[in-house]
């Protein structure tokens, strides 16, 4: 079936068309049948009426013939007897006694003489002379002895009378009078039965002369009407039983009419039944049928309407259901491929799109780029402000990212704060860089979260097809590596993949993994770098430095893992461990009888701003038995300046504990004297960049001097970091630096090594010269 036909068929069977159509069909069939039945019934009734008429006329004919014959028999008897009697006398009386006369109640029998005088009669009220009557004249004139049926005449009582006469002959054959039988005309129609003929049926006897001798319609009896005999009776064929015609009677009523001429007598009998009456039954039937059919039609219509409506509703419900199911399925599919929070494609969808993109690029010889990015300070915000703020941030980031892209590009969220961008149809290399730049700009714009402004930055790694990989896994891996490189490069930048990056980032990713377990596996160790007094060169304190004994990589420097620790938050438990260990170590040294030296521990920003810090410190001091004033916490100048108010509060609290505060990497933060004064600090450690410049006799040297002077003016203990040359050492000594720290003097060493150093020092009061030997160790 061709699609047009199929579609038409589908349309046509919709409930709103189907049911009315079916209804019409059924009704059409029903009414068709009913009308047919009515037609058939009408025809049957008509036929029945015709048949009835035929039967009635036959019966009537027989009755009239019998009546006539009986009358005529009597007349013939009288005629015969009279002819055989020479002096006929009391003929009728004799006949009466013998019971040969017709019933007196109906029939008057009379005999006349040739002059018309009534000689004998069975009735008393017969006129005395009948000479003037038509029948008398006829018989007197005519030579035959035949029966004559005259016109109906009004009798004495006013009713029409029929006269049947025969002539009487004398023995010599001469006219001797007439014998007459008269009967009321209505005798001939007294057999009218309403049951058969109805109230408008017709019985009649019409003479060959066209005059009705008598006719009866219902109860109305008439005589003498004139009709056209030949048209009424027509050619009678005795064999033709049913010559029934529709005739409009003299009263205007249509009747099934049948007329038959009698064989022996000069009349025809006529029977008619009214069409209306005969078909009354049919009419009633018709009305009843029509009524019932109408009711049935109505019922059908209602039923169809209900059914149709139900079907329609069912169809609609099913449609709705289907739609809902489809929608649901679509929704499920959407969710399967889209991130719920941001609405961006998720990892699975992105994977698909990337594979597709690779195929397309391969086919059309184009480039594409994959950009991995994550948000640099997302975790901080998420932890500090709560997940709702974090979610909001992610949503906003998603929007901004989308705004950086074309229609053909895709951005997806891989999870957490990681996003990936697919740039398909790369027309030129620069485009990827442009997009990366746009992303950085977009993400660097402040976000408003919980009513406050926050900034995050992004690190973006870029891998391009086909240079950086030809399949999904390679491209994504390399983009990821490039991103990590961007992070290592200080974040808030983008980096293209290059093959040299591979191992570095692998190690970085591996590091993070192992770092998580490092603490539990006791892979950490503290090394201590001595700080020496400029005056006598003796060890005046140590700085605790974290070392990591990686099972595979060996000893790992903080530079390599501290940033990971900071970002992942692992710094907090690690830092806690460092503090504890440092305190323990210090107490252990003192237990050995060694003179107490202050021990410095670095605090990272995360540690510093970590709320439980004070409580932790307190408990560590208590549990280790460490004297607070022997513990110095080092924080960078940059950290202090990041949030001045908060930093001050924390420092105040720390001071209250009794621990000492040192500002590390001093000088690079551009803090003023005034700011510094606000902080409760004890020590200032000059950033190594100044120390490096110190002996150079360059412009920076003045800067260094100024910084030292500043520290002096604040009455702070001044430590020079990173002293590596004698020249530097001399310079600083001249400037009245208090302490120094650096490779020139010592390398960081484990606790027991320090212990022996301190022990030696304790036993030897002389100043310690700068020793190159130490360097060798």
């Amino acid at each position: 079936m061709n699609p047009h036909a199929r579609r038409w068929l589908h349309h046509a069977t919709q409930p709103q068309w189907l049911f009315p159509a079916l209804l019409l069909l059924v009704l059409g069939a029903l009414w068709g049948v009913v009308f047919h039945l009515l037609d058939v019934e009408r025809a049957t009734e008509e036929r029945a009426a015709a048949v009835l008429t035929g039967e009635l006329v036959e019966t009537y004919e027989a009755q009239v013939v019998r009546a006539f014959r009986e009358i005529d028999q009597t007349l013939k008897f009288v005629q015969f007897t009279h002819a055989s009697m020479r002096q006929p006398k009391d003929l009728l009386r004799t006949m009466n006694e013998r019971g040969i006369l017709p019933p007196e109640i109906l029939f008057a029998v009379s005999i006349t003489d040739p002059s018309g005088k009534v000689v004998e009669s069975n009735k008393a009220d017969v006129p005395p002379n009948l000479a003037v009557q038509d029948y008398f004249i006829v018989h007197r004139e005519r030579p035959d002895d035949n029966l004559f049926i005259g016109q109906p005449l009004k009798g004495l009582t006013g009713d029409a009378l029929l006269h049947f006469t025969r002539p009487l002959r004398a023995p010599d054959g001469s006219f001797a009078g007439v014998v007459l039988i008269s009967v009321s005309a209505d005798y001939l129609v007294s057999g009218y039965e309403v049951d058969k003929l109805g109230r408008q049926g017709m019985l009649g006897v019409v003479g060959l002369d066209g005059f009705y001798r008598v006719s009866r319609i219902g109860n109305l009896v008439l005589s003498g009407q004139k009709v056209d005999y030949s048209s009424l009776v027509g050619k009678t064929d005795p064999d033709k039983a049913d010559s029934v015609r529709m005739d409009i009677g003299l009263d205007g009523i249509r009747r099934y009419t049948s007329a038959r001429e009698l064989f022996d007598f000069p009349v025809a009998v006529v029977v008619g039944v009214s069409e209306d009456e005969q078909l009354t039954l049919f009419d009633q039937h018709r009305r009843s049928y029509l009524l019932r059919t109408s009711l049935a039609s109505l019922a059908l219509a209602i039923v169809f309407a209900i059914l149709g409506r139900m079907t329609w509703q069912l169809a609609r419900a099913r449609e709705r259901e289907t739609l809902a199911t489809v929608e649901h399925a679509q929704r499920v599919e959407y969710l399967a491929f889209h991130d719920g929070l941001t609405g961006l494609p998720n990892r699975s969808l992105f994977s698909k799109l990337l594979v597709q993109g690779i195929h397309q690029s391969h086919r059309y010889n184009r480039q594409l780029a994959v950009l991995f990015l994550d948000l640099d300070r997302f975790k901080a915000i998420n932890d500090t402000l709560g997940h709702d703020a974090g979610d909001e941030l992610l949503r906003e980031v998603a929007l901004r990212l989308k705004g950086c892209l074309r229609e053909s590009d895709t951005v997806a969220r891989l999870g957490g704060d990681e996003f990936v961008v697919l740039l398909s149809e790369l027309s030129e290399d620069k485009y990827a860089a442009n997009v990366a730049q746009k992303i950085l700009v977009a993400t660097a714009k402040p976000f408003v979260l919980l009513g406050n402004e926050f900034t995050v930055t992004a690190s973006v790694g870029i891998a391009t097809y086909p240079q950086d990989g030809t399949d999904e896994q390679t491209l994504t891996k390399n983009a990821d590596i490039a991103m990590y490189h961007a992070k290592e490069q200080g974040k808030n930048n983008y980096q293209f993949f290059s093959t040299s990056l591979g191992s570095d980032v692998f190690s970085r990713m591996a590091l993070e993994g192992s770092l998580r377990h490092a603490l539990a596996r006791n892979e950490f160790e503290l090394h201590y770098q001595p700080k020496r007094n400029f005056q006598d060169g003796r060890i005046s304190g140590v700085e605790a430095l974290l070392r990591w004994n990686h099972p595979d990589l060996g000893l790992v420097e903080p530079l390599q893992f501290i940033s990971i620790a900071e970002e992942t938050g692992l710094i907090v438990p690690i830092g806690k461990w460092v503090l504890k260990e440092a305190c323990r170590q210090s107490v252990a040294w003192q237990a050995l009888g060694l003179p107490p030296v202050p021990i410095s521990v670095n605090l990272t920003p995360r540690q510093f701003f970590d709320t439980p810090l004070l409580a932790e410190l307190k408990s560590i001091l208590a549990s280790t038995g460490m004297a607070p004033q022997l513990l110095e916490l080092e924080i960078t100048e940059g950290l202090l300046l990041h949030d001045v108010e908060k930093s001050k509060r924390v420092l105040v609290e720390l001071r209250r504990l009794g621990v000492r505060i040192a500002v590390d990497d001093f000088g690079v933060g551009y803090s003023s004297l005034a700011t510094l004064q606000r902080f409760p600090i004890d020590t200032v450690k000059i950033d190594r960049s100044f120390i490096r410049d110190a002996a150079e006799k360059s412009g920076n040297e003045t800067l260094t001097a100024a910084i030292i002077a500043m520290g002096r003016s604040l009455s702070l203990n001044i430590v020079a970091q990173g002293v590596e040359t004698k020249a530097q050492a001399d310079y600083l000594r001249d400037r009245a630096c208090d302490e120094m720290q650096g490779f020139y003097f010592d390398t960081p060493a484990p606790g027991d090594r320090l212990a022996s150093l301190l022990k030696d020092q304790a036993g030897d009061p002389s100043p310690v010269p700068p020793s190159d030997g130490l360097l060798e160790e």
Partner: protein
Amino acid sequence: MKLTGKFLSLALVFGLGTHTGTADAAVVAVVSAKSGISTLSENELTDIFLGRLNRLAGGELVSPVDQPEDAAVREEFYLKFGGKSQAQLKAHWSKVIFTGRGKPPKRVANSAEVKKHVNDNPNAIGYIDSADVDSSVKVLQIGK
């Protein structure tokens, strides 16, 4: 059929003139004194005289006998039993005779003839003035 002029005058006479013993004379149905029939219901009597019934429930044959058409007693009889006028009677016999379904009762000239007839014919039933009842006839009890 309408009443004959003669009867009309007779009726007038009866109506206007003094009512003799026969004025609202009770017409009675009679049978032979020797007849075994003594009671009939009105319906039975009517049916017999209308030619519808010629045998009683007990199996006895019955045949009616009429008086002449102009007899007052006749008119009374048919009015009293069955409520038929002479015109109605005539119409009845017209139909019956025409359709060949019966014949009218034998007719005799007067009450005396009726009595004579019933005596000669034990099956016969006739009607006479109650004044004319004698021992030769038995009056039938006509129930409703």
